């Protein structure tokens, strides 16, 4: 029989261990006190963006017995049996303790009052939210975070996201005392205060009292704070409440050796609850390497814990802070090189060995962009250039340097994957090396390595242009070129191809250059755009009239039915709440459209790289739960953005309440109604790689909503690659969602007026493409199967019946093996 491994704790590290052992012969039983599947605690603060725990879930574990919501209450090491809270007993051959940490709550009188919370689990955040929402007194809500470290600042920022003004109280004379030195802390305080956090350093709370609706905190400094909510974030302690009679480390934690084994050879400890050779770690990366060690040990290996990098970077919007290595220069004889630029708001300190040859650590505040290249150099020789004032930080990394510290992936591993051809972009590197699947901060480094390895990160559109689509867009915009031939002559080579021609046609159309079948443009268009219909496998086309928001009158519905019947078109309801009519020949398209246009329909652009549909649920009009008019907004948006040419198709949806019946979060831009207005989510995707859209702005009114969507879409259109959906674009955007928000919400680049003007021009210039064809005999003349026999149908096309409709007879194509 297989041996049994019992894991106590289904946190990040316990989960990782099981994932590694997934294919081993061990029978694995996991006890998790929390009732939900394992989730990404590192990203806990992002929970307040969506309040959807699904977004944080770690990959589901298959092939193990998961006992969620069941705490282990005792362990009998003699009998080798674990006892769960339900009374269940499981015997083990190996036992792994992965119980994590508990938040440390200082003994302040009043700390147990309702409204006082810790910040460790999803349930904690739900409780904090409930307290905040229950606060009914008028005016802005106010909160206190006790502890000004990394987690305290994250918690304060999360409170801010819930509409609470936070006070941060830190006993040490500066914020982030563990990571940041005196010099950097002053600047850090200023940056943090810009986020509307009130900072009190060098003091602590001496008591908390309830006063009716409020909590009153008295600080040692004499100040009294009037509060709705209190969050303790004063550090963590290894969680060892489960007493196995095993020795603990000097600062707590189950004491283990370098193999992560306790004094009992059957019992291991990993993650934050472990004191490896006496040392505990409060970061996930060391925990992951402990999981690797134990997985290897119980499979008969000899791996030991290699020690850990405790570098950290604050995950706080707008505040760049990082510290790495020996940040406080505690190494004997260490020297510091400090550059403090008060004007630019940047501080950097490098710590080097006494001979100024080895980099030991550093602190960066205000601009931590060099963190990624510096961190791997710790313990290595310092390039001399670094020590010059303002020295370049673009330095060569040694092969064994860790690029991704969360998953302990070295530069060598990554370059091997690239050079052997296993991975040629960030997504593939993620999949095969796991790099960047933790905090994600190493993505820019991965890109850099790809480029250094000469992977054609070349952004060249095709053999005819060395420019990326975004660059071409700027060239066309700046030079006002209006034809492909002029563009390729001046800025490209050759005559173009099926890649650059449609891409340029799309850019020209985005910039508003008349009908897409205008004089020269027609030769650039893909067949779909050329015939304003979607080519199907037998050479016929499908027809999709626009039905904004999915709302249609019976009269119009009847017209569609009549047209379909008269031309024998196969009819199908699409996923975008409209109707697709299949099987029209080139010759039939104008006649069909004449009838549709006469009945008040217009092109649905199903054929174009442009806005498809804005789906909607029925919203307040009919639905008992609706809080806003989702149909009205969907129609307004669809009419606003119809015909907008973009790097790829655009889909949207509007839901009338948080139940999300319109599936807005799987769209390029999705809107969900709230009591106070609208939440805008961007860069979602269904299809091959589904992605939930990210919250960009919340609780905005319709005017602000449209303003942000205008900017978002135009920014995407200008900067995305050819055929890159918004999801992939955002994933690849340097700085990600934060950067996007800086650009389109905060207008950091000062381009928003320009983006809005471009959208305004699109809206005012919009004209129905099909009407444009019907009114122009020259364009109409192209809709013939044969120039020498207009009106003669293509003899290769034939149909058969299936379930009462016409479907194509499959064309005999056996002579070519595909």
């Amino acid at each position: 029989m297989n041996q049994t491994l019992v894991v106590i704790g289904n946190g990040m590290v316990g989960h990782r261990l099981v994932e590694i052992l997934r294919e081993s012969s061990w029978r694995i039983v996991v006890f998790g006190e929390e009732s939900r599947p394992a989730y990404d605690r590192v990203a806990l603060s992002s929970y307040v963006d969506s309040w959807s725990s699904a977004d944080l879930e770690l990959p589901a574990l298959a092939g193990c017995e998961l006992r969620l919501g069941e705490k282990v209450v005792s362990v009998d090491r003699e009998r080798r049996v674990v006892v769960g809270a339900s009374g269940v007993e499981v015997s083990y051959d190996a036992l792994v303790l992965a119980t994590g940490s508990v938040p440390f709550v200082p003994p302040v009188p009043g700390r147990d009052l309702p409204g006082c919370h810790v910040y460790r689990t999803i349930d904690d955040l739900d409780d904090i939210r409930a307290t905040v929402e229950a606060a009914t007194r008028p005016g802005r809500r106010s909160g206190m975070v006790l502890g000004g470290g990394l987690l305290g600042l994250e918690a304060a920022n999360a409170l801010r996201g819930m509409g609470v003004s936070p006070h941060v109280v830190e006993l040490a004379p500066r914020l982030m005392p563990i990571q940041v030195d005196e010099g950097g802390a002053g600047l850090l305080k200023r940056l943090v205060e810009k986020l509307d956090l009130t900072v009190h350093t060098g003091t602590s709370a001496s008591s908390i009292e309830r006063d009716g609706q409020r909590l009153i905190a008295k600080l040692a400094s004499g100040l009294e704070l009037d509060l709705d909510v209190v969050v303790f974030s004063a550090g963590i302690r290894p969680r060892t409440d489960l007493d196995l009679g095993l020795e603990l480390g000097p600062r707590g934690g189950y004491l283990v050796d370098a193999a992560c084994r306790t004094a009992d050879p059957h019992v291991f400890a990993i993650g934050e609850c472990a004191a490896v050779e006496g040392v505990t770690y409060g970061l996930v990366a060391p925990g992951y390497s402990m999981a690797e060690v134990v997985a290897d040990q119980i499979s008969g290996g000899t791996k030991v814990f290699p020690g850990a990098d405790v570098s950290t970077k604050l995950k706080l919007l707008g505040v760049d802070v990082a510290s790495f290595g020996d940040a406080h220069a505690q190494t004997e004889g260490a020297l510091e090189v400090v550059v403090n630029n008060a004007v630019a708001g940047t501080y950097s300190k490098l710590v080097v060995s006494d001979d100024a040859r080895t980099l030991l650590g550093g602190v960066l505040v205000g601009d931590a962009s060099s963190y990624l290249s510096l961190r791997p150099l710790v313990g290595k020789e310092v390039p001399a250039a670094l020590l010059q004032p303002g020295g370049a930080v673009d330095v060569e990394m040694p092969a064994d340097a860790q690029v991704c510290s969360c998953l302990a992936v070295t530069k060598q591993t990554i370059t091997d994957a690239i050079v052997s051809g296993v991975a040629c972009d960030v997504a593939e590197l993620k999949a095969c090396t796991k790099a960047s699947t933790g905090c994600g901060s190493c993505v820019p480094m991965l890109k850099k390595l790809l480029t250094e390895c000469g992977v054609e990160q070349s952004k060249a559109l095709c053999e005819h242009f060395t420019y990326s689509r975004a660059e071409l867009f700027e060239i066309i915009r700046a030079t006002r070129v209006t034809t492909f031939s002029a563009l390729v002559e001046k800025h490209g080579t050759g005559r173009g191809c099926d890649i650059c021609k449609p891409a340029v046609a799309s850019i020209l159309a985005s910039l508003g250059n008349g009908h897409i079948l205008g004089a020269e443009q027609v030769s650039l268009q893909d067949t779909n755009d050329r015939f304003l219909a979607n080519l199907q496998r037998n050479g016929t086309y499908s027809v999709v009239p626009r039905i904004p928001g999915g709302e249609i009158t019976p009269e119009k519905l009847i017209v569609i039915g009549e047209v379909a019947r008269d031309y024998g078109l196969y009819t199908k309801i699409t996923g975008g709440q409209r109707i697709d009519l299949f099987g029209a020949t080139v010759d039939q398209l104008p006649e069909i459209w004449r009838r549709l246009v006469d009945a008040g329909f217009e092109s649905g652009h199903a054929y174009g790289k442009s806005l498809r549909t804005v789906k909607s649920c029925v919203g307040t009009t009919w639905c008992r739960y609706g809080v806003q008019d989702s149909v009205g907004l969907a129609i307004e948006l669809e009419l606003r953005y119809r015909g907008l040419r973009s790097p790829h198709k655009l889909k949207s949806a509007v839901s009338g309440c948080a139940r999300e019946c319109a599936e807005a979060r799987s769209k390029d831009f999705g809107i969900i109604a709230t009591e106070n207005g609208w939440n805008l989510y961007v860069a979602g995707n269904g299809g091959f790689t589904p992605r939930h859209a990210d919250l960009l702005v919340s609780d905005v009114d319709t005017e602000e909503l449209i303003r942000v969507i205008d900017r978002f879409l135009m920014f995407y259109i200008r900067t995305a690659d050819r055929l890159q959906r918004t999801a992939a674009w955002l994933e690849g955007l340097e700085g990600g969602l934060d950067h996007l928000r800086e650009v389109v919400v905060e207008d950091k680049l000062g381009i928003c007026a320009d983006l809005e003007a471009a959208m305004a021009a699109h809206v005012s210039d919009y004209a129905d493409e099909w009407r444009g064809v019907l009114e122009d005999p020259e364009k109409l003349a192209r809709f013939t199967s044969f120039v020498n026999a207009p009106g003669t149908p293509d003899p290769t096309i034939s149909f058969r019946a299936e379930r009462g409709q016409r479907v194509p007879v499959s064309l005999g194509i056996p002579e070519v093996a595909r």
Partner: protein
Amino acid sequence: MTVVCDFEALRPEQGVAALLPDGSQVAVFLTADGTLHALDNVDPFSGAAVLARGIVGDRGGVPVVVSPVYKQAFELSTGKCLDEPSVSVAVHPVRVRDGVVELT
């Protein structure tokens, strides 16, 4: 001999389809340098008669048309498929006489 259309009716870098008396079809292209090409209109990969509707351009300087169905490129002057060298489409002689395009 089949009359296709007036030369004036052709647009550079675009194709048109012509029906032959035997029911077969030919795609006729005018390239930017003024050269005429004629290939079978049926795309051998999909079986659909659509090559005339493909995008005309060049691959490494060789004039091609790209099938709109699965995007293989065919060399205009030889009919050879550049993506699958074992496949090709027939080439037809084409000329302009008195301003009229003819397949001979």
